[in-house]
């Protein structure tokens, strides 16, 4: 993920370069998702799409903390997580647009972003299913002795489905190198998580059910997220087993493109916008002495990168229907009879 640290402006002296790197990544994710939203409005994005606007600190912190060969598993709300592993923007954008140059050639769509070359092992669109799958990847890393760690992101709503429970228990019993990260953005699609959950903190209050430490973190505080990311990945890498993290955050927009998010009290929305992780982090870094020009440069870079990606993606042709019958099987085809 070398490209993540590259940039026009040098880091301000005296500030941990990891923090600057983290900010840069968050700014890039923000720029990308804003553009994705614009492209919705232009009706260029096909199908549905779920943005990570407002939740960037979580994906970015883990992106910075992970080793290049670690594994990411995430949900349909996975643009940020995909980019955070160093996947270039253009093929991600092209996938949202349903183009030939898409990350999966248009076959997967926004909800299934995957780039094995970057350790991005898939975005899963059925709530909870990827938790056991992530445990399996961690099991594989464990028995191969590769030192790899699997990080699995999911929403608050996923904590009430059976697969969550099965995966957490198995991971704990087998002491698997996996980090389960619950992005608690307070809502499922439209229903507040508190209306349907027996405990206040849907993940943290359940860690003890798997013999795990309860870890609750402010998901909009990038520094806190980076600490948690490093420590949980470190534990996993050192053979100390899985962690379950609950990062509290908020999505800026609706659940998906179809959702104007009218169900949220205006005061709550205001409060959380004031706690925008990108803004907060910029303020923190400025307070620590980072110069304004640094941010100007980072943001300009991000915008340019998004512009270029958009250009490439929109120039990409429509996929050829010849791929419909391809890649059901490893032989590249889909034959089921002779």
């Amino acid at each position, binding site marked *: 993920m070398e490209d993540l640290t590259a940039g026009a402006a040098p880091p301000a002296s005296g500030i941990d370069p990891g923090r600057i790197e983290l900010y840069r990544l968050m700014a890039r994710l923000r720029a990308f998702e804003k553009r994705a939203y614009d492209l919705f409005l232009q009706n260029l994005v096909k199908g549905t799409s779920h943005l990570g606007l407002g939740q960037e600190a979580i994906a970015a912190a883990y992106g910075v903390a992970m080793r290049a060969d670690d594994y990411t598993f995430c949900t349909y709300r996975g643009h940020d997580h995909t980019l955070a592993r160093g996947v270039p923007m253009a093929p991600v954008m092209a996938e949202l647009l*349903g183009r030939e140059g898409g990350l999966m050639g248009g076959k997967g*769509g926004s*909800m*299934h972003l995957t780039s094995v070359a970057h350790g991005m092992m898939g975005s899963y669109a059925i*709530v909870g299913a990827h938790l056991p799958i992530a445990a399996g990847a961690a099991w594989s890393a464990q028995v191969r002795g590769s030192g790899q760690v699997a990080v699995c992101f999911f929403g608050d709503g996923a904590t009430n489905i059976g697969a969550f429970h099965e995966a957490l228990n198995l991971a704990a019993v087998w002491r698997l190198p996996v980090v389960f990260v619950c992005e608690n953005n307070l809502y*499922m699609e439209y*229903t507040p998580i508190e209306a*349907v959950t027996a405990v206040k903190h849907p993940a943290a209050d359940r860690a003890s059910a798997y013999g795990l430490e309860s870890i609750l973190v402010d998901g909009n505080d990038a520094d806190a997220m980076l600490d948690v990311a490093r420590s949980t990945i470190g534990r996993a890498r050192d053979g100390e087993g899985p962690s379950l993290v609950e990062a509290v955050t908020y999505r800026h927009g609706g659940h998906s493109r179809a959702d104007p998010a009218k169900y949220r009290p205006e005061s709550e929305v205001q409060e959380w916008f004031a706690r925008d992780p990108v803004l907060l982090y910029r303020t923190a870094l400025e307070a620590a002495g980072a110069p304004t020009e640094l941010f100007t440069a980072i943001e300009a870079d991000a915008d340019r990168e998004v512009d270029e990606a958009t250009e490439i993606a929109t120039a990409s042709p429509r*996929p050829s229907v010849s*791929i419909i019958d391809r890649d059901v099987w490893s032989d590249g085809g889909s034959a089921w009879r002779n």
Partner: protein
Amino acid sequence: MAELTYRQAVAEGIAQEMERDPLVFLLGEDVADAGGAFKATVGLLERFGPERVRDTPISEEAIVGAAMGAAMTGLRPIAEIMFSDFLATCWDLIANQIAKTRYMTNGQISLPLVIRTANGAGSRFGAQHSQSLESWAMAVPGLKVVAPATPADAKGLLAGAIREPDPVIVFEHKSLYASKGEVPEGEHVEELGRALVRRAGEDVTIVALAAMVPRALDAAERLREEGVDAEVIDVRSLVPLDMSTIASSVAKTSRMFTVEENPRLCGWGAEIASIVAEGLFDDLDGPIVRITTPHVPLPAADELEDATVPSVERIVRAVLAAIG
């Protein structure tokens, strides 16, 4: 008659039955406050209150399990599973528990419950949110299965399903929710197990279901231009299955085509085709042709999705090739 969208007709069907019978309850993810992910339950919370219209956690096994427990103890629950693809997450409850309990208990337990779910392709949602899975349910003894193609049936078959004393899965079609049509005013209930001849014809029989019905009808118009007079049958109810309507048609036309949105293998079309191949062998003048989605998961991009599911064009070509 009133013109309604299919999604409005669903809500009307539920409202009609909740009004009539205080034991009818609705539960599912986002069905109450939000009026459903497809807005097919809008207004029900306001009308019937939070006790009878209940939001649930994302816990599909708990949703259909709770419906089952409630149905065996006096309620008539309607459980919504947001996308039919998610039936897989509670398939044990559906296929092993709900379907078998009446039989295993020698008739002691009845399960008057409905599972409503949004089925089918056309929204570019990709392979995990676009499947047509009605044949999964058809394959399980103990489940009744309907799939309405029109707003009138969305209301009438749903109401019929709610009144059934046995478990029924209602496959609503995502790509039809916005479609409009005449719906009888006042109480409207359709009996399960009756197919409809949507277009009479003499030359070939085209058997279709749900979103494939309008396509088959369009294809029939196109075929007319080619001099082929197609009869189009809307199956409507897979279990119970109205074979007599299908058989009468095939006896008349001597040629049968099925149009299925599901992937190729072991779909309802194969079942009907093999029933005809056994029972109406002597009536047939030529091969039975199944027009289906190929046996692949569904791709997401619009061009790809459109080229995968049977199109009007593909139906026309298949019929002409077979009789040509």
